[in-house]
């Protein structure tokens, strides 16, 4: 792959709308985000807010709304991509005197902030969608499960709910139709597993957030044992737009099987970190090179990580892949909830896998053995490999263990936890082999495998000697210095200090 052209600044561009960052974007779920004041219901209404609800309640039947959502082709934006309309259909078909609508705002992937941005920037879009959903499936109570670590999102949601009640969009007899719907917030304590739907439901019920087997699915038996429609924040944010503009217009965006747009939190080794929304089917190359502006410092793009701890890596060889649910799973990654972490040549893929496993070890709820113990063992094996004492048998063991964890874990957290290992093994096996056979970390990240040395460019200026915290560097002034590997703690201080590129690591 060619290095990305360096960014040239252009003083004639005075508006975000005219930047490369923005040109390829299409804002549907984020239509009001960054435009309106999220704490003003009037501004939301000025941008056609609550008009979809008004029309739904006064002119459309619940069945018609489910039909529109089905036809739009909208799929769950939490990551799995289940058709939203079918979920609504299941919940609508369930026979029960009480049903619930819930919103999953327990965004836990490291580096992901799509849902937070929607809640902070346009909370009414989620509220409006949930009332519509309540009408469509026959529920009168909704819950938004949001993590307490999002104080601004929670504050704005509370303001928005209060305003919606004042205006009569929540409560009894909405728009004079006799339909009643109320909404409450439930705060999560930040456990990653609570983003899993059955664990989330258990947590809303007031119990410790642990998953339970499915089926029964929440649409049949969910919150308090009643049929429950549970969708992600971004999924809901699309609903009012679809009802206002028609399913045809939404279905015209995207690919054959994946309609609409997707929000990504673009982060890592990328120039334009930020929040982007692109039509599904946009290629990874467009997102990385055009929207993202490439890797900083002219470094070479190595891989993109999607789906966080449940996802996988897309290597540079697949950069022209369209970003949609099917294409990404075909290469062993996933759409995920929208975290998109870019990695360049300085990232070690074994270390990345180890990082995500370290996360799942912390976040495994401990209920089932394959996940509780399996992820711990996986992480230990990865520690061994990155520490320099791994063997090829360990790599085989990794693969075997991955299969056991995927096949036997109770919930999606465990089932998908091996994905970062499997996808890096698939595309970067040479890096694993370099760690195990050559005892080298090609990216120079894994400290256990690093050796610092000094080359002939050394002028003997002694700057490194003064900065070294362990006294590992010695030598006479104006002569080449040496590093004692026994004392060196690989802190990189000498490398940062040296003005002559004389410190080498490898």
């Amino acid at each position, binding site marked *: 792959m060619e290095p990305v052209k360096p960014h040239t600044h252009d003083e004639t561009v005075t*508006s975000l709308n005219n930047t490369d960052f923005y040109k390829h974007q299409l804002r549907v779920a984020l239509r009001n985000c960054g435009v309106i004041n999220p704490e003003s219901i009037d501004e939301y209404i*000025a941008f056609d807010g609550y008009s979809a609800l008004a029309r739904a309640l006064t002119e459309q039947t619940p069945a018609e709304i489910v039909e529109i959502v089905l036809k739009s082709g909208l799929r769950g934006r939490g990551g799995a991509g289940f058709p939203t309309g079918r979920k609504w259909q299941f919940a609508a078909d369930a026979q029960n005197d009480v049903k619930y609508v819930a919103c999953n705002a327990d965004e836990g992937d490291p580096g992901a902030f799509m849902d937070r941005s929607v809640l902070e*920037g346009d909370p009414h879009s989620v509220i409006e969608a949930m009332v519509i959903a309540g009408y469509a499936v026959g529920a009168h109570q909704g819950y938004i499960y949001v993590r307490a670590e999002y104080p601004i999102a929670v504050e704005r949601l509370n303001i928005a709910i209060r305003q919606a009640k004042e205006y009569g969009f929540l409560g009894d007899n909405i728009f004079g139709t006799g339909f009643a719907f109320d909404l409450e917030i439930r705060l999560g304590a930040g456990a990653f597993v609570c983003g899993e739907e059955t664990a989330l439901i258990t947590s809303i019920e007031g119990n410790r957030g642990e998953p339970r087997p499915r089926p029964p699915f929440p649409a049949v038996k969910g919150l308090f044992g009643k049929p429950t429609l549970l969708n992600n924040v971004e999924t809901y944010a699309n609903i009012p737009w679809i009802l206002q503009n028609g399913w045809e217009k939404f279905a015209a965006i995207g690919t054959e099987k994946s309609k609409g747009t997707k929000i990504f939190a673009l982060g890592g080794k990328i120039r334009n970190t930020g929040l982007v929304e692109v039509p599904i089917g946009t290629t990874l190359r467009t997102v990385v090179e055009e929207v993202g502006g490439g890797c900083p410092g002219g470094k070479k793009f190595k891989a993109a990580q999607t789906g966080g701890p449940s996802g996988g890596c897309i290597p540079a060889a697949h950069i022209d892949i369209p970003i949609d649910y099917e294409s990404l799973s075909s290469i062993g990654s996933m759409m995920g909830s929208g975290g998109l972490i870019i990695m360049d040549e300085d990232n070690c893929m074994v270390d990345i896998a180890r990082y995500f496993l370290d996360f799942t070890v912390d976040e495994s709820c401990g209920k089932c053995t394959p996940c509780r113990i399996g992820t711990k063992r996986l992480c230990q094996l990865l520690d061994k490999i990155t520490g320099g004492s791994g063997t090829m048998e360990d790599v085989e063991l990794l693969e075997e263990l991955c299969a056991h964890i995927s096949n036997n874990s109770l919930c999606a957290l465990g089932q998908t936890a091996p994905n970062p290992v499997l996808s890096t093994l698939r595309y970067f096996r040479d890096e694993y082999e370099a760690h195990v056979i050559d005892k080298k970390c090609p990216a120079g990240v894994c400290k256990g495998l690093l050796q610092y040395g000094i080359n002939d460019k050394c002028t003997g200026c002694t700057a490194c000697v003064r900065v070294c915290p362990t006294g590992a560097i010695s030598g006479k002034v104006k002569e080449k210095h040496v590093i004692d590997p026994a004392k060196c703690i690989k802190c990189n201080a000498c490398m940062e200090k040296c003005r002559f590129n004389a410190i080498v690591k490898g």
Partner: protein
Amino acid sequence: MKSIEDLKKIREATLEAVCPREGNAVRVVVGMATCGIAAGARPVLAACEDEVGKRGLSNVTVTQTGCIGVCRLEPIVEVYVPGEEKVTYVKMTEEKARRVVGEHIAGRRIVTELTIGAAE
């Protein structure tokens, strides 16, 4: 709120303030999502409001908004003037915000060197 008509009334009453289409009305928004606030958007918003007040500018709305998207360049201030492309000011400080109010909003001259195209 009893009918679609009520909704329309609010819509029409607010639209001009949110999305000025004519006249001298100017709308200034400051990105106040977590990313913006962390980068220092609160004092920027306060400076914009204060400077607009000090200069006695009428027809200017200063308000907060959600994430504008370019987290890297926060705090961000955007200025909407009717009939023109919005202008995006990046990496704002209180001083820069006061300058934008003075030169762009009061004087109607875009402060090019503070806009997104000039960043970095």
